[in-house]
């Protein structure tokens, strides 16, 4: 492969033949390390670092037990965020798409979650329960799928109708669902659900997927995120808890979530699929950064805007080099 290089390009590529100055690379490296070490140590001493305690199911069930209860009913009814999510957790939704590309769907189910079973029934089964909950569990497990769904969705609808105010829910044929939801709420209040979800019937556990997903289905985590200014729609991706600096380097990723059509979840096709469009935009922009020297216009900015006259001013002065015409 032979390219025709301009004289300037050839000059830039050749080893430097002009004046040199002394330079001690090891000394420079050592000084840099010492300076940065001192800087980091001082910053750590003065400011510390953020560490807001993790939230718990116990905290959720105690501080907002109606919401926890209603979320549990949604998990049983299959109407929660997780239950309707689609891949990679289940096939109950198509997920997002960019035009004809259903990347989410194509990737398949790799972390299977059955919201009713994994979040509610299994944890209840793995604990000693009151006779009432025991009876509800056996009624649930012997019922048909259709019957279960009917009980749970009827109850879920009734709760939604009264806007989550449990005391206002009229009587109806909800089967074992109220007893199950009540059992799980009591379990969560006592702190037992945190442990039950974590162990998931095993001894060792390193996968927190189920806890995180169940936790986010309710209002507790979302409210805490809003209170800490972490919501994506208000640049939260860049923010940190407390007064600490956050991930300022995510400003561009965060930026897209602030402007239409990405801000409007009801606009099709882009707003409704904002997550994947922004992911694709950022992927392309990252490639753009990597290949920036190939992009016409951008690659000639450094020649047009002469910041380099400042960077190399002592060399230009000592050699009497004027700006090149171009």
């Amino acid at each position, binding site marked *: 492969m032979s390219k025709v290089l301009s004289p300037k390009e050839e*000059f830039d590529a050749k080893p430097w033949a002009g004046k040199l100055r002394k330079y001690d690379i090891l000394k420079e490296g050592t000084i840099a390390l010492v300076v940065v070490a001192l800087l980091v140590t001082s910053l750590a001493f003065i400011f510390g670092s953020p560490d807001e305690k993790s939230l718990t199911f116990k905290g959720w069930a105690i501080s907002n037990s109606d919401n926890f209860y209603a979320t549990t009913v949604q998990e049983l009814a299959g109407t929660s965020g997780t239950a309707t999510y689609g891949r990679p957790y289940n096939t109950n939704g198509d997920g997002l798409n960019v035009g004809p590309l259903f990347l989410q769907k194509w990737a398949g189910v790799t972390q299977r979650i059955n919201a009713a079973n994994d979040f509610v029934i299994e944890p209840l089964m793995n604990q000693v329960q009151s006779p009432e909950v025991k009876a509800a569990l056996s009624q649930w497990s012997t019922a048909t799928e259709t019957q279960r769904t009917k009980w749970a969705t009827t109850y879920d609808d009734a709760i939604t109708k009264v806007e989550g105010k449990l005391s206002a829910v009229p009587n109806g044929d909800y089967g074992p669902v109220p007893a199950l939801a009540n059992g799980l709420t009591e379990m969560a209040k006592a702190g037992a659900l945190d442990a039950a979800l974590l162990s998931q019937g095993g001894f060792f556990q390193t996968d927190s997927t189920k806890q*995180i997903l169940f936790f986010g289905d309710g209002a507790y985590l979302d409210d805490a995120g809003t209170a800490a200014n972490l919501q994506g729609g208000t640049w939260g991706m860049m923010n940190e808890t407390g007064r600490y600096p956050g991930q300022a380097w995510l400003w561009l990723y965060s930026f897209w979530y602030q402007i239409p059509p990405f801000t409007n979840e009801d606009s099709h096709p882009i707003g409704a699929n904002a997550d994947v469009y922004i992911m694709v935009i950022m992927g392309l922009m990252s490639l753009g950064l990597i290949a920036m020297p190939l992009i016409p216009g951008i690659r000639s900015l450094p020649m047009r805007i002469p910041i380099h006259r400042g960077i190399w001013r002592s060399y230009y002065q000592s050699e009497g080099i004027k700006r090149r015409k171009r």
Partner: protein
Amino acid sequence: MSQKMWTARARESWQKNLPIEKLIPDTQPSYVASWIYVFGVLTIAALSMIVLSGLILAFAGPAWYHTSSFGHWVNSLHFWSVQLFFAFMVIHLWGKFWMAAWRGNRFKTWVSGAVVFVLSIATAFTGYLIQTNFDSQWIAFEAKDGFNSAGIGAFFNVTNLGQMLLLHVAFLPAVLGLLTLIHVLMVRKRGVVPPIDADSSNTEAAK
């Protein structure tokens, strides 16, 4: 005979392209005289501090710093090293952009640096996920949707603490360290890019 041996060929090619005088030089072209040139080495210094504080955190386990005040301080070292690392790296990037430092066969050096930048964001992100505090709960729940929507979540599960922990302390730093090394070796091999307005008439005049 040595022409066909991989080992001999690799050694000869190294010696030709990157002799020890280039690898650890004691001179620089005289135009390398600006504070903007120190941000590359400052970035590496901050990266060293990240690795050092990270090693201590790794030895003590991911939840240690919640309960030990020394642990919290080491966590603070890690946190501020990361803030400085990104600040220095971005200033380095701005500097190299305005010098058009990809000139003269240095395109691959730019590419390796930009890849390190993008990969650093991913590495820092996994760090935020393994803090085992409210921040990581929030970030895991929010970030999963983006990755899932692009099909990445199927194998890169941000809500899986174990997976993120291993990637953050093993795979990502290894790749990042290797790419940084390659980036630095490329800089040493090609030398620092000459000034935009300089050409052969300047070096000839110098002789």
